[in-house]
């Protein structure tokens, strides 16, 4: 037990608060994600789970609290008790470690699949085209799209686009992968192919935080499920326990409505 406790968590949210104007979206969130852990965030819409996810890579700024990723405070330099805002360029550099997959894929429509994958490695990691291409093609192969390198996003199905988006994020060799409702915009019959890729990724030991409504995926793949409601973490624990035997009334009500 002491050996485990000594390992710094990959992500540590520390009393995170976030407002949109007068609306308080996150009301003091504490959360830890260990290296190699797969955590699913579940909860009703408006509960703040997507906002929390976006705070991890600083797509949203915080109003209070600190977000630690891989031992450093995200978006700020911690000097004594003061958090100094980092420049946008610095934040971009920290984001290299954190891959993100969006609900609506957000592939670059004017680029081919391969160009989508190698754009950031070339611009940000300053890799040679040949090096990036080699890794990109291998990743496309691993998500089952080895033959689509020259296709444009519009020519692909939603499921294929989302698999490209996952490969694009992985092409930056991230330490953490964030998924923001990755299957919510997909036709039902395409959900499975995306979940399979995510399952394979989890099996490689990738640290993953997944906002999802797929309870079966959460039960099968997640090490831990976190139930959020109204800006609070209501309940968390092993997937089987939270989904199979929820302790809190609100969790029970939510699960009853989605299962």
């Amino acid at each position, binding site marked *: 037990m002491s050996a485990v406790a000594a390992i710094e968590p990959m992500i540590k949210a520390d009393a995170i608060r976030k407002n949109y104007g007068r609306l308080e979206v996150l009301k003091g969130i504490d959360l830890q994600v260990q290296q190699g852990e797969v955590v699913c965030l579940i909860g009703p819409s408006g509960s703040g789970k997507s906002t929390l996810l976006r705070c991890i890579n600083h*797509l949203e700024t915080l109003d209070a609290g600190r977000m630690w990723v891989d031992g450093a405070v995200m978006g700020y330099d911690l000097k004594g008790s003061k958090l100094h805002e980092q420049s*946008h360029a610095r934040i971009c550099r920290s*984001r290299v470690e954190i891959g*993100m997959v969006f609900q609506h894929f957000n592939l670059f429509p004017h680029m081919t699949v391969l160009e989508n994958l190698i*754009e*950031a490695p070339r*611009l*940000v990691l300053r890799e040679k085209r040949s090096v990036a291409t080699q890794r990109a093609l291998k990743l496309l192969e691993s998500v089952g799209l080895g033959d689509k390198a020259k296709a444009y996003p519009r020519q692909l199905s939603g499921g294929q686009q989302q698999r490209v988006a996952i490969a694009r994020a992985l092409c930056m060799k991230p330490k953490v992968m964030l998924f923001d409702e990755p299957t919510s915009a997909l036709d039902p019959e395409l959900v499975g192919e995306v979940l399979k890729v995510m399952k394979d990724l989890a099996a490689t030991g990738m640290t993953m935080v997944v906002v999802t409504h797929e309870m079966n995926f959460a039960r099968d793949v997640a090490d831990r499920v976190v139930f959020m409601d109204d800006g609070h973490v209501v309940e968390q624990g092993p997937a089987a326990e939270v989904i199979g035997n929820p302790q809190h009334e609100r969790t029970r009500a939510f699960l009853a409505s989605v299962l």
Partner: protein
Amino acid sequence: MSVLTEPRETAVAPDDYTIVKAKHPGRWISAAVIVFVAILLLRSVMTNPNFGWGTVGMYLRDVSIVRGIGITLELTVICMAIGIVLGVVLAVMRIAANPVVRTAAFAYVNFFRGTPVLVQLLFWYNLAALYPSISFGIPGLDLDANRIITPMTAAILGLGLNQAAYMSEIVRAGILSVEHGQSEAAGALGINRLQTMRRIILPQAMRVIIPPTGNETIGMLKTTALVSVISVPELLYSSQIIYARNFETIPLLMVASIWYIVVTSILSIGQYYLERHYAKGGQRSLPPTPWQQLKRIVRVHAPLTSKGAIK
């Protein structure tokens, strides 16, 4: 008894039905009225001796007229180039995080859009009255405004800087048309703001930017006629010089108009195909070209065969 009864007339085989097109008498009447008015108009243009068609023919390819077209085209190209480059810079400034930068861009656009371009041209032309010597604040530099600001530079500055204000609004609309998710995805990949703008946002904004830019180019070609007031020998001014000598005012204005129409028509065709090109990928199938539409109108319809294909 079944509800669905057999059709009573069974003499016609299913394949032998033909479609009789609806008659549109209203269309024929309106077409006839328009053709009648057009003939009247054409007749008056042909028979009115004041148009001086003989003189028009004589001056259509006059050396100074052709030289004037050259200057008109030169002005159009240079001023649009200035307008587009400066317009992109202003558009990016308009959406910058720094409020001073934003306000400066807004002030620029507001000033140049808010004053008539003719007044701006006169201002540039008379710059020497405002600043007899130009130093740009650099000690030792002392340029004579009268020598730098020739009619041509005044025209380029006036039209180019004014165009930049309009182009910046077009470019800004293009940038805003790109989904916010695109810059978010780029940001999540660690791509910085400048690279995101250059590699992700602007290429996608082009589809929105290109059509109105074509429109502006055609507009610019005609607006260059304004610089005749500061005696730049472009197409209109060249015609004016000739009719000041021979008093054939109308025929020479016709000469200028014909050339403006010819050049803008060529530009319109170019714009049409450029838009078609940038529409690719955005639509499943492209609208037909005028030539394809013409072919569709004159195509003879045959009754549908059993295979449903049009013979």
